[in-house]
């Protein structure tokens, strides 16, 4: 009698649904997965080490590149840790802007997630719908910071600059002209806040549209219900956060439990799941779209009616305005010192965590009193999720591995760091 053995399959890193550079070693019994061993490190760029050799402010840009689909949220955790270390007061308007952009980032991230999750399970149309909306939000990023993705918009003490009064418009081109041009510029006639409001109000309808494609789709349900089930106890033990934890039915959200920025002042709900399977996590994230949109509308409302500074007026931490530099020697010196040497943080340590779209994203900084961190530790939400991969896919089929990768919403920028 011949010997029957399981066989090993190499899934990734060059695989259409490896979400970047995931490498899974799968031990398969036919189509059934017996063991899944994720290999990480293919996107390691040494962010934490790099931060040790640079003044605090110069590492903000690296944070964008950690979880490169929820850029501003990463910045938020980093600057919040620095602010804690320095004890800087952030102006209220800046806090509202941060709240708004955190939520826009959440929508950006979840759009990317629904697109790729759908694509992994074969529903490819959703991917392009999601990217249509993403494009608009990217334009907002570009309008405030000049960069579509890696914004570097948050700074210790506030944000880089106030929201623009005018939303940039599409220029006429061979492809977009006449009626098309008026249509794409319809929301862009007024200020940026007008644009965000128009987009967000329309977005509720868009989410409904996505749901018509998937939520009650029998095939979608067959592919996600009962797949990758995590019990609430197990989810806590595994260190899950964000929608992964809420999908299992635990109402844990840092925005409610440890409010930062202006989350204590805005009204929103935390959706939670019941069964802890892929479908529940899908529903939770779809609901988060709507909650994020609600928060954005409240922020827009406040920002419209309240003006004020957007960055702390503390020249040790934030640069003086260009005007002041022209005739004030002190300001010029501050500017020079800030952009060469940076600032020195008092010796000590600080941990700041925010509810990033994927879960708790935290930065732990130890300062020895120098102008750069002695050590920076990034707590990436994706890491514990990926670590639970084996537990979630064991006994499922190869196609379900793909569903679980999608539901974990993995991005390797933050896992490999």
């Amino acid at each position: 009698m011949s010997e029957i053995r399981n066989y090993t399959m190499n899934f990734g890193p060059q695989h259409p649904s490896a979400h970047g550079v995931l490498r899974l070693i799968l031990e398969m019994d036919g189509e059934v997965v017996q063991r899944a061993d994720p290999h990480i490190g293919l996107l390691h760029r040494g962010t934490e080490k790099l931060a040790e050799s640079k003044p605090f402010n110069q590492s903000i840009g690296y944070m964008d590149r950690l979880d490169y689909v929820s850029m501003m949220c990463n910045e938020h955790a980093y600057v919040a840790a620095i602010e804690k270390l320095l004890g800087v007061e952030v102006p209220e308007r800046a806090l509202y802007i941060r709240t708004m952009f955190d939520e826009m980032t959440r929508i950006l991230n979840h759009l990317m997630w629904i697109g790729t999750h759908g694509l992994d399970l074969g529903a490819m149309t959703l991917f392009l719908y999601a990217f249509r909306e993403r494009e608009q939000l990217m334009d907002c990023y570009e309008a405030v910071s000049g960069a579509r993705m890696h914004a570097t918009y948050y700074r210790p003490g506030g944000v880089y600059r106030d929201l623009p009064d005018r939303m940039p418009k599409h220029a006429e081109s061979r492809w977009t002209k006449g009626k098309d041009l008026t249509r794409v510029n319809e929301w862009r006639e007024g200020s940026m806040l007008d644009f965000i409001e128009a987009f967000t109000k329309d977005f509720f309808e868009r989410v409904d549209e996505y749901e018509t494609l998937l939520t009650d789709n029998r095939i979608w349900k067959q592919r996600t219900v009962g797949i990758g089930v995590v019990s609430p106890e197990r989810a806590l033990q595994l260190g899950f956060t964000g929608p992964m934890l809420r999908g299992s039915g635990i109402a844990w959200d840092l925005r409610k439990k440890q409010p930062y920025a202006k989350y204590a002042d805005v009204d929103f709900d935390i959706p939670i799941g019941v069964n802890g399977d892929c479908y529940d996590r899908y529903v939770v994230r779809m609901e988060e779209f709507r909650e994020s949109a609600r928060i954005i509308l409240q922020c827009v409302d406040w920002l419209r009616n309240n003006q004020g500074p957007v960055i702390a007026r503390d020249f040790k931490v934030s640069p003086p305005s260009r005007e002041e530099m022209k005739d004030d020697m002190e300001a010029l010196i501050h500017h020079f010192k800030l952009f060469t040497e940076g600032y020195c943080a008092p010796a000590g340590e600080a941990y700041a965590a925010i509810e990033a779209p994927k879960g708790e994203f935290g930065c732990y900084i130890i300062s020895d009193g120098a102008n750069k961190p002695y050590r920076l530790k990034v707590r990436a939400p994706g890491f514990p999720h990926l670590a639970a991969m084996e537990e979630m896919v064991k006994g499922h089929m190869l196609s379900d591995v793909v569903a679980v990768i999608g539901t974990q919403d993995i991005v390797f920028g933050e896992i490999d760091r």
Partner: protein
Amino acid sequence: MMDDLIWLIWTLAKIIGIAVPLILAVAYLTLAERKVIGFMQVRMGPNRVGPWGLFQPFADVLKLLMKEIILPAKSNRFLFLIAPVITLAPAFAAWAVVPFDDGIHLAQIDAGLLYILALTSLGVYGVIIAGWASNSKYAFLGAMRSAAQIVAYEIAMGFALVGVLIAAGTLNLNSIVTAQSGSLMHWYWLPLFPLLVIYFISGVAETNRAPFDVAEGESEIVAGFHVEYSGAAFAIFFLGEYANMILISALAALMFFGGWLSPFQGLGLEGTPLDFLTGSSFIWFFAKTCFFLYLYLWFRATFPRYRYDQIMRLGWKVFIPITIVWLLVVAVMVVYQIGWWW
């Protein structure tokens, strides 16, 4: 002697007359697919090669033909190269018995339906051999999935066709169509509706198209059975798949939608100025085929992919029982002459 020669040349001319338009149809089906799905997905589709991208298929073919055919080191050369041919040949050969209009066909054989069933079943060997000969785990999984899936759906499809056979009382495709003449309500879609649905869904599964494309499974097993194929060998797989899609659509039109019969027949339009609409024409056949092809594209843009075991469950536990029950219903209807179709 002379007669034989003329017959031979005439037959060859007919073969070319079917094969060349078929290849062109495949070429433009790929373009149509990209355009239609493009518009469903708020994008343009190909629009750079020629006006509205009309020359795109030729650019694709040219590219594929010029690429190297890579033979994996430990593959079985002979099987690896013969597999695409095994997929393609039946897809084209089946067209021999397809009537395009009353009496317009390459071969009029009385067992036409049986011939088509036999040939379309052969196509799967290409897929299995390709997956096996590639000596790749991904391709192997694709071949396994395909083998299991085809067994299930071949049966459902066969039973659906038996329904048509009972209704028409003949295996000859030409006679099947003429048996449906009368009006829109005489076509077999009405009495055989469950069989039509099952036939077409099985057809989608048979051709490995979304949402049943588990043998290819882009996001799971990369490209499944043809993951190791490149260049012309890949193009042949592609050609075979699309020729099969057109075949399934054409057969659905012939067997359930009255082939070349006009949908305006029997509506009392005869003798009025709109009389020209009621005539039979291959244009109707063409239009009906296009309708089913459009469904293929629509499915692909809409549905997520089934999991392999779910496809099997659907095939064995839903489709086959329904077809068997409906066969009995049809048989009773035919024997007792219930309805106006027989």
